[in-house]
């Protein structure tokens, strides 16, 4: 398998470009995706190659253009809708939740909505409380939607294509802290988009995570290895549906679990994963399931407070040590 080094941003752009090349029905639509080049520069230059009919700049009306995307999908197109950040997507939640997610069911299977919505998420850039949140869990709660969280450059490269081939609405969360990260991109996707992957094998504790927290979990695992603790790192990749088989297989191997999730602690996706483990793997556990999530506060602006609010490598290392020592 050959590889190529790309930043996460470049990988996302390659994925969009391939989709545009392969299928004439595909178009990209969103605020500033064309002439400006995308607010995170993901779609920079695409309008020059594909023109304003396929790279469509929209006014600032999230509900309107997401609704247009749903209608276009119903009409046989394959829209990629970009909502700048997860915070703005709340303005389009009516269309996403009440239309995209429900139409197939309410029509008795007659109409499906092959729509992909991309949005940036996550904290770490001192953007304060209206540009830093992680509401993957809100969307992962909703039947009818599929929710992806690419954490690697390879997933950034291929998950979009996989999502476009899916006949149902798919939401892709792209963590802002990953955009400049460079890494190897494989020449093929590693797995079906709905499959969780073990990113590092281990025997003592499972670190279950996704998206922006994956690299933190991997760093923690390296530090733990030095301390003699073998941590397995599991990347969920898809938050709805959850790949429960891969989760339980890991727990059966390590018997201890820490879930790392940038959502708020209460009502987090980590809570859901924890509940699944309680229901299906309780007798495999040697210790209570641990969650490391964001503090219960709107993300603050000052760097030291922002960092304190978020899950960090040190927290994971300390928690894993305590878990292994039987202190939890």
């Amino acid at each position, binding site marked *: 398998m050959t590889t190529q080094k790309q930043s996460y941003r470049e990988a996302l752009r390659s994925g969009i470009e391939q989709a545009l090349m392969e299928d004439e029905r595909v178009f990209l639509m969103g605020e500033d995706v064309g002439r400006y080049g995308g607010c995170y520069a993901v779609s920079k230059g695409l309008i020059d190659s594909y023109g304003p009919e396929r790279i469509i700049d929209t006014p600032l009306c999230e509900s*309107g253009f997401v*609704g247009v995307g749903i209608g276009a999908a119903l009409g046989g197109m394959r829209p990629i809708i970009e909502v700048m950040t997860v915070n703005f997507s709340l303005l389009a939640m009516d269309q996403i939740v009440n239309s995209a997610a429900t139409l197939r069911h309410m029509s008795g299977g007659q109409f499906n909505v092959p729509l992909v919505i991309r949005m940036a998420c996550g904290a770490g850039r001192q953007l304060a409380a209206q540009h830093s949140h992680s509401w993957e869990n809100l969307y992962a709660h909703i039947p009818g939607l599929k929710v992806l969280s690419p954490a690697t450059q390879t997933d950034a490269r291929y998950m979009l294509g996989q999502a476009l081939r899916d006949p*149902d609405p798919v939401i892709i969360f792209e963590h802002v802290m990953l955009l400049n990260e460079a890494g190897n991109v494989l020449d*093929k996707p590693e797995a079906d988009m709905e499959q969780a992957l073990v990113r590092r094998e281990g025997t003592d504790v499972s670190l279950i995570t996704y998206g922006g927290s994956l690299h933190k979990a991997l760093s923690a695992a390296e530090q733990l290895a030095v301390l003699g603790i073998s941590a397995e790192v599991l990347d969920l990749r898809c938050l709805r549906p959850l790949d429960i088989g891969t989760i339980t297989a890991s727990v059966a191997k390590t018997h201890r679990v820490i879930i790392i999730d940038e959502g708020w602690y209460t009502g987090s996706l980590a809570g859901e994963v924890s509940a699944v483990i309680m229901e299906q793997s309780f007798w495999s556990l040697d210790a209570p399931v641990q969650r490391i999530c964001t503090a219960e506060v709107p993300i603050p602006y000052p760097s030291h407070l922002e960092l304190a609010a978020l899950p960090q490598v040190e927290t994971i290392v300390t928690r894993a040590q305590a878990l292994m020592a039987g202190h939890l």
Partner: protein
Amino acid sequence: MKHKLHLDRNHLVNQLVQMLRIRRFEEKCAELYAQEKIRGFLHLYIGEEAIAVGVMAALNAEDNIVATYREHGHALARGLSMNSVLAEMYGRTNGCSRGRGGSMHLFDKQQHFYGGNAIVGGGLPLAAGLALANKQQQRNTVTVCFFGEGAVAEGEFHEAMNLAVLWHLPVLFICENNRYAMGTPLALSESETNIAKKANSYGMTSAQVDGMNVVDVEVAAQAAVTSIRDNGEPYFLECQTYRFRGHSSFDGQLYRDKAEVKQWEEKGPVKRLQQWLRQYNHFTDAELAAIESEIKLEIDVAIDFANKGAWEPIADLCKDVYSPKIMDAVPALQQAKEDQ
């Protein structure tokens, strides 16, 4: 090719039949609701039939329709069978949405009927999107979007108006202005009560028409559809109408006088066309009686059809939330597996 309007006697009698089918069907629905055969919310279209019947007469089989939760009239006028509409309201699998939607969510792919949407204003951007797909794929298809005047207060109304004009989308917006958003009259919810004027402020061609007169509605809709097909620009039609019944079956109608309702009933679309036909076309009571008995028969058959419809097995509860998995959906992945 442009449609020519043939307002001959046969056409008008047919329009009367279509309106009467909706009227009698819904009167029966109200009874069936009282008998608890139909459950959930039931929003009747009684009084507004001229709009659905007039507009549908201007459309082709390929045109798209996006409707609201008060859509029995749109569905029947579009050509959904009374059987499948009533069975849907009964929640049976032989309903037009397999019983999954009920009264507010009638869908029919064959008829290009994109539903009953129960979120006020929610259908407007969706209709704009269908129009965008038609435009991109160079289909000469018009998308018609029905909504009430209450939707005008929603942000999505304004977003859809802007996008439709900005992007030259072939969509016909039909505002059914029945004067009350549930129980709130227009003047209490809008600073500007001339709705056509609002649409016009976005640069959209807009017109107002007497929504109680099926001929006026058809003529106006025909002009609108022709304009959209010729110019590829959106068009807005405000139909002045009135709902004779409450907002839904739970509405005590404390917000309006009975005298006001009576006044509007006098100029009701069914009554008006009947009177006109009698006056100028020697339309006899015997002819009307024959039409009525045919409709009664159609309704009886529909009730029987709905009663005999199967309930969805509970084993299928979670069906149709997601599409069936397509095994060859990810060619690159398949290739990767083969390489291993």
